[in-house]
């Protein structure tokens, strides 16, 4: 019996001191996870988001000018028929999409801006990028599938992947752009 109780005491390592230490450790981990990391991420977003986004923008511009040079004209039209009437052998649906979100810094700027109202420049850029990117993707998709032209092009915007927390919707501002049309050849 004595031996057993001694063993139990020996095995039971968490004394008062170690217990306090563990508690402190737990608090430290929580602070790092929920305070320090988001703060660091926010600072990172403030400093480097522009670099990430402008590199995407540059790539897009390069691709746009490349397709423009290759085709000599834009292959997307919103008319329901190709304008100089021509013979059509086959048709098919073409679509492309992109999901974009503003960075934390842009969200922050936007939330400040929305107090005073007016043009929210940081969102503007994001949306303009998403929309031109989705159209460029449609062009590339059409070329890859072998369509000469895409008629009746429609571009749609929707908020997706909403997070509903306490009545506040779409905290992240995630938007989806969809472009679709009928490819003809």
């Amino acid at each position: 019996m004595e031996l057993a109780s001694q063993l139990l005491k020996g095995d039971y390592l968490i004394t008062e001191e170690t217990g306090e230490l563990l508690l402190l450790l737990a608090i430290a981990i929580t602070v790092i996870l929920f305070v320090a990391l988001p703060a660091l991420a926010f600072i990172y977003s403030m400093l480097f988001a522009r670099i990430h986004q402008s590199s995407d923008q540059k790539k897009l511009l390069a691709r746009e000018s490349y397709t423009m040079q290759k085709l000599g004209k834009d292959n997307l039209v919103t008319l329901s028929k190709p304008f100089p009437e021509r013979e059509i052998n086959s048709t098919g649906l073409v679509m492309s999409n992109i999901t974009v979100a503003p960075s934390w810094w842009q969200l922050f700027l936007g939330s400040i801006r929305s107090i005073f109202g007016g043009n929210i420049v940081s969102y503007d850029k994001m949306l303009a990028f998403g929309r031109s990117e989705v159209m460029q993707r449609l062009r590339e998709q059409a070329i890859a599938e072998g369509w000469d032209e895409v008629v009746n092009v429609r571009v749609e915007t929707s908020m997706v992947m909403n997070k509903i927390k306490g009545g506040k919707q779409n905290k992240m501002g995630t938007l989806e752009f969809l472009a679709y049309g009928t490819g003809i050849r």
Partner: protein
Amino acid sequence: MEGMMTSNTETIPGFTITKSLGIVTGSTVRAKHIGKDILAGLKNIVGGELKAYTELLMEARTEALGRMMMDASQRGANAVVNVRFATSSVAGGAAELFAYGTGVTVVEG
């Protein structure tokens, strides 16, 4: 579903519509994978494209389109004209993708 013609214009050039079979629909609800959600959340810090969501939504939309074509073929249609898409958030973190159009039978000429 090969050979089913789809178009978002009112007619299919080179074909004549002989019969309209009414509205055909297809939909799917997708929620994101938790791992992808976390990755997308990290990408959200710098903003820009969230590739995980883009792929997920395209996959889902293709499936909705497939279901619409299935519906059309069950009604005996061989083409779907005036296809439209709609997207809506039905619950937190889930999206419904809906495709609809008019099922028709067409003949060449």
